[in-house]
């Protein structure tokens, strides 16, 4: 099948995506990027954080949904709010700090209009210039619709978006499995890397369930870790390492089949020698089953879950992406830990995260390099298709009705582009 891209605009964007290929224009065209903001990022649910990042009333972080800056904060009633970071008066950005805690709310630096943590307009200095009966309730910050699932905070600009649970669909089961890495403790965010790379956001989204690249791009990391960790992630010929296209663009790739459900343990897996010191430290205080449970969870869950369009739950961390331009994307990689759990175990997870992830990690910089290379290379011929057909020859339908193939196959990408096509061509 060929893709006709000549002169396509507006509702013709659907013709850029076929079942087995997409036009390179989806990475390159600024008009498509603008349309994606309107039709995807401002219409669907975007993840904007995890509840553990907002431990107290007044805790906040500034993030963005698409290109729109937002403040995520916990209010005096313990509710999480997601507020457009823009004063209602003359439009100034209210808060520029990446995170922190405030007592009462946010005050605009320009004319000191002040807002409560739930976005209500509290005060206008020198109010005599306004009618005495000014209706402050109509001048609060713009609030996004917010729903949570398993501690993950989602927000949308679309008041008519379907409920979050329906949007997540069967991804919920995988989110539940992912959170089992708490090993009996509540999962908490311990910190986050924030970095930018020069590539379209979909190139990163595709990568989350792309097992094919792993031993190739990450050869220097595989050679650098201990033999047991390298063996754990040697899935290229493992028939149990599979990937599923879920629905609504979501997908999951299983890299460590024995760690899909961390509650299941037949006792045959040897604990990795690298955690020997931690085991020795914890052994006196923890029953053997709990110790095994904890140590088996240190690398996180055995899979990467892609939740369209901006969230990935990847083994031991949460990834948020944000498309800042057609050829630039910001990522946050938030490392998880155990709330109230052993300090040594939390530190192990920090070191694992530092080793691979982040701007100076042994993995992330190599990923960003190839993503940017795709961005530059695809421009060589925007009409030449990007192939997403790997594994079509061996893809099957699971009992639940989800396409399933090997984790090195492109099943997840096909699911993401099915959703992309739906959103980019529907009237709304």
């Amino acid at each position, binding site marked *: 099948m060929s893709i006709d891209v000549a002169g396509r605009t507006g509702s013709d964007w659907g013709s850029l995506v076929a079942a087995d290929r997409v036009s390179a224009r989806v990475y390159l065209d600024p008009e498509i990027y603008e349309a994606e903001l309107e039709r995807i990022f401002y219409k669907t649910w975007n993840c904007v954080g995890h509840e553990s990042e907002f431990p107290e009333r007044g805790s906040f972080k500034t993030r963005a949904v698409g290109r729109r800056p937002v403040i995520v904060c916990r209010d005096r009633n313990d509710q999480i709010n997601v507020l457009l970071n823009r004063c209602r008066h003359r439009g100034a950005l209210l808060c520029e700090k*990446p995170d922190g805690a405030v007592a009462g709310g946010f005050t605009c630096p320009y004319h000191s209009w002040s807002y409560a943590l739930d976005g209500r307009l509290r005060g206008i200095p020198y109010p005599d210039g306004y009618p005495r009966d000014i209706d402050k309730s109509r001048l609060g910050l713009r609030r996004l619709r917010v729903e949570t699932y398993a501690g993950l905070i989602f927000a949308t600009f679309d008041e008519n978006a379907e409920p979050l649970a329906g949007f997540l669909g069967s991804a919920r089961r995988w989110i539940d499995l992912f959170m089992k890495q708490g090993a009996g403790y509540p999962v908490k965010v311990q*910190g986050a890397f924030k*970095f930018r790379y020069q590539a379209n956001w979909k190139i990163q989204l595709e990568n989350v369930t792309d097992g094919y690249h792993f031993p190739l791009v990450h050869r220097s990391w595989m050679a650098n870790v201990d033999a047991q960790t390298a063996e754990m992630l040697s899935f290229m010929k493992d028939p149990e390492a599979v990937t599923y296209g879920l629905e609504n663009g979501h997908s999951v790739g299983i890299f460590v089949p024995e760690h899909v459900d961390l509650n299941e343990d037949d006792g045959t897996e040897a604990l990795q020698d690298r955690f020997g010191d931690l085991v020795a430290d914890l052994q006196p205080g923890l029953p053997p089953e709990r110790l095994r449970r904890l140590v088996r969870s240190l690398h996180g869950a055995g899979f990467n879950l892609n939740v369209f369009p901006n969230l990935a739950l990847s083994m031991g961390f949460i990834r948020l992406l944000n498309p800042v331009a057609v050829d630039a994307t910001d990522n946050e990689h938030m490392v998880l830990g155990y709330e109230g759990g052993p300090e040594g175990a939390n530190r192990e997870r920090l070191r694992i995260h530092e080793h691979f992830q982040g701007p100076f990690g*042994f993995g992330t910089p*190599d990923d*960003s390099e190839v993503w940017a290379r795709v961005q530059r290379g695809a421009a060589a011929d925007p009409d030449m298709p990007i192939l997403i057909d790997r594994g079509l020859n061996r893809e099957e339908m699971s009992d639940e009705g989800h396409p399933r193939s090997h984790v090195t196959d492109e099943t997840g990408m096909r699911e993401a582009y099915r959703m992309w096509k739906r959103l980019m061509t529907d009237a709304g």
Partner: protein
Amino acid sequence: MQAEAWADAERKLALADPVALSAIELIYREARLLDDQRYRDWDELWAEGETRYVVPMRREVVDYDATLNFINDDSPMRRRRVDRMTSGHAGAVNAVGRTVRTVSRFAVDRIGDHELRVTSTEIVVAYKQGDHQVWAAELTHHILSADDRPCIRAKIVHLVDAEHTVRTCGFLL
């Protein structure tokens, strides 16, 4: 606070002091090796035994092990980093074009019989694929000066934008 300031003043070395000069010379040599991507030679500048090479994410952090850092290398981890950088299989490292860096604004304190603390600024211009990036940081080196060959015991790199979004990096600061 004032007492501490006086103590600092007493420990401060003049830049012309031969001990201070040898430490500054070491830091210049380090800058050259990093720009030339001679990571094995750079590794030789470090002290034996316990060392630390850190790029923290927050300036106020003192217990690096308790928090997430861009880099938090002890001696074995630093050698593994050098192994990666010299392996020929790290795409980001292979793609680095050129860097040139300036290290300046030195201040040297004696903090032990054989240990100096040198603070400085570092500006790196990195060029790759038609793109110039600027990296700016404040450096703190702990230099051991016991033998005739000074060596690095610790290096802390405070990026000016550490708390914000940074680029991914295929070289060392």
